[in-house]
């Protein structure tokens, strides 16, 4: 993918050791992040997140469906990520599938909790309209438009922003038709319910390059990584999920250190996201 010469590699490693990366950032600093909401009119909620030169879009679509028979009191959430060929020639054809599924699995682990739906960032039971009969299915689609590293963090941020932008139509269940299995529902097109996003975590990925670890790696830095740990942390500073990529092993003490650093970094990230969400919503209101 990204080929670097020996001289460039050495320069990058030296920069990380000296705490000054090639774009002037320190090891744990993020690139400037910016947010737009409501970028897809057909979706219930959408957002574009730009992190330096990485650009991703997330959209939320809600559809009425039937809960799974084993879990009648829970709605369904499906996460699908696609890497657009516009982001790079390596994503052409089936080239992006491996990365797409890796990102989808990583996000599912971080956002959706266990198999039973416990510990999910999105409250699944709030999606149920009539137990065992009808519920909302949330389809979360992410699209990578420009790829310059740290896709997982950008996608998680985009999903969090898109969820806060989501309005789900208010539904009233007409009770008398309950004799049959099919329920009659009345979907309001005026009243929308806001989504509770306070529990949705952000993901902070720390990438180990050489002897140090860095936050928000660019694709050049990622090409030199030995391993990367993605920690998803919610607003209360609790760790919700953990994914490790890369072959090299990590010492448990380093791992614990990384988690506490990620927790600290997530506080900043959440604060930045909150202020950006407020600004983006204000901008959207002005526009409409």
């Amino acid at each position, binding site marked *: 993918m990204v*080929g*670097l*010469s*020996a*001289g*460039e590699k*050495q*320069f*990058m490693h*030296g*920069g990380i*050791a*000296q705490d*000054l*990366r*090639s*774009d*002037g*950032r*320190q090891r744990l*600093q993020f*690139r*400037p992040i*910016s*947010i737009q909401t409501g970028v897809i009119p057909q979706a219930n909620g959408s957002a574009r997140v*730009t992190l*330096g*030169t990485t*650009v991703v879009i997330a959209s939320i679509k809600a559809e009425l469906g039937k809960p799974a028979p084993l879990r009648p009191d829970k709605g369904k959430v499906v996460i699908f990520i696609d890497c657009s060929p516009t982001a790079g020639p390596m994503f052409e054809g089936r080239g992006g599938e491996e990365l797409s599924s890796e990102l989808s699995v990583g996000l599912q682990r971080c956002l959706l909790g266990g198999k039973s739906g416990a510990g999910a960032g999105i409250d699944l039971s709030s999606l149920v309209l009539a137990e065992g009969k009808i519920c909302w299915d949330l389809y979360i689609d992410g699209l990578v438009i*420009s790829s*310059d590293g740290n896709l997982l963090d950008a996608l998680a941020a985009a999903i969090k922003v898109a969820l806060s932008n989501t309005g789900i139509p208010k539904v009233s269940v007409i009770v008398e038709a309950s004799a049959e299995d099919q329920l009659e529902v009345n979907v309001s097109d005026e009243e929308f319910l806001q989504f509770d996003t306070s529990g949705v975590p952000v993901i902070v990925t720390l990438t180990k390059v050489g002897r140090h670890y860095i936050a928000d790696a660019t694709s050049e830095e990622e090409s030199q990584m030995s391993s990367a740990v993605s920690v998803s942390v919610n607003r209360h500073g609790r760790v919700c999920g953990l994914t490790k990529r890369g072959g090299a092993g990590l010492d448990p003490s380093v791992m614990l250190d990384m988690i506490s650093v990620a927790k600290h970094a997530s506080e900043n990230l959440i604060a930045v996201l909150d202020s950006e969400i407020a*600004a983006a919503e204000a901008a959207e209101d002005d526009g409409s």
Partner: protein
Amino acid sequence: MKELLISLNQTQKVRLQAALQHLAELASQVSSSNLAVTVADTIPVNNEDGILKGHGTTEFDGQVVATLCGIVERVNKLVYVRTLRARYKPEVGDIIVGRVIEIAPKRWRLEINFSQDAVLMLQSMNLPDGIQRRRTAVDELNMRSIFEENDVVCAEVRGFQHDGSLHLQARSQKYGKLERGQLLIIPAYLVKRRKQHFHHLEQYGLDLILGCNGFVWIGEHAEPIDSEVLEDRDKIPKDKQRDTPLEVRRNICRISNSVRLLSALGFALSVEAIVDTAEASKSSNVDIKDMLGAEFYVQTAEREVQRRASLLRKKRFV
């Protein structure tokens, strides 16, 4: 090419808009002869006879119509459109920076942002020992000791061969492998052809190479190695382990960020503009990483307006 997108707040947006508007006005004052066209614009040819339709034009309803965005150029009877944003088109003598992608018999293949890969023949570059002689099979086997795959190399365009392939040459000490620095890729049209493409910025202790193909190398200053010094081979491996000093690295990052910023704004890259931007960031105490932030982005656009306006004023007085 990855483009930098910068989000601006409301006042910054207004300021940037004003600055860009101003730039457009200044540009229209300077050049009225060049006709800018977009796709489907008609090109006025004043019913001349025997007009030759060149690149980027077609005939539609008896009129010459542009099929590309760019500037209309005329050479005698030939009318063509010179595109503003296109792939790099090499010309003989261009100094370019490229990345080795393959080692083939007697040649290296380089990626230079052209529609095909460039070829650097073993015989068209100086050997490291500096002796002029025929290349032997041993030399061919040792090619990887000169350039490896992924190495960044600086060279000069030698010309097109009969089969249409692009050949390069590196017959001087100033060409060759580039180490200890970073490569930035920007649109090629932002680099204008000049006398000087190698710049040694002494005040910063770094080398800046503006490749005509839009590859910009910014690295620690390296003295061209004389063949006599090279006898002392033991010294080099030790030297390779050395890290770039922090002060030089700060300067490299600052210069790199000014290149990124200017290319994001779409301003032509000259060494003066780059150094000027870096100095402005230093004097207004802007942190290196904040150079890519919204505020400095707008400030740079406004400074460019002032620079061009003063240039225009000087021209009028002369």
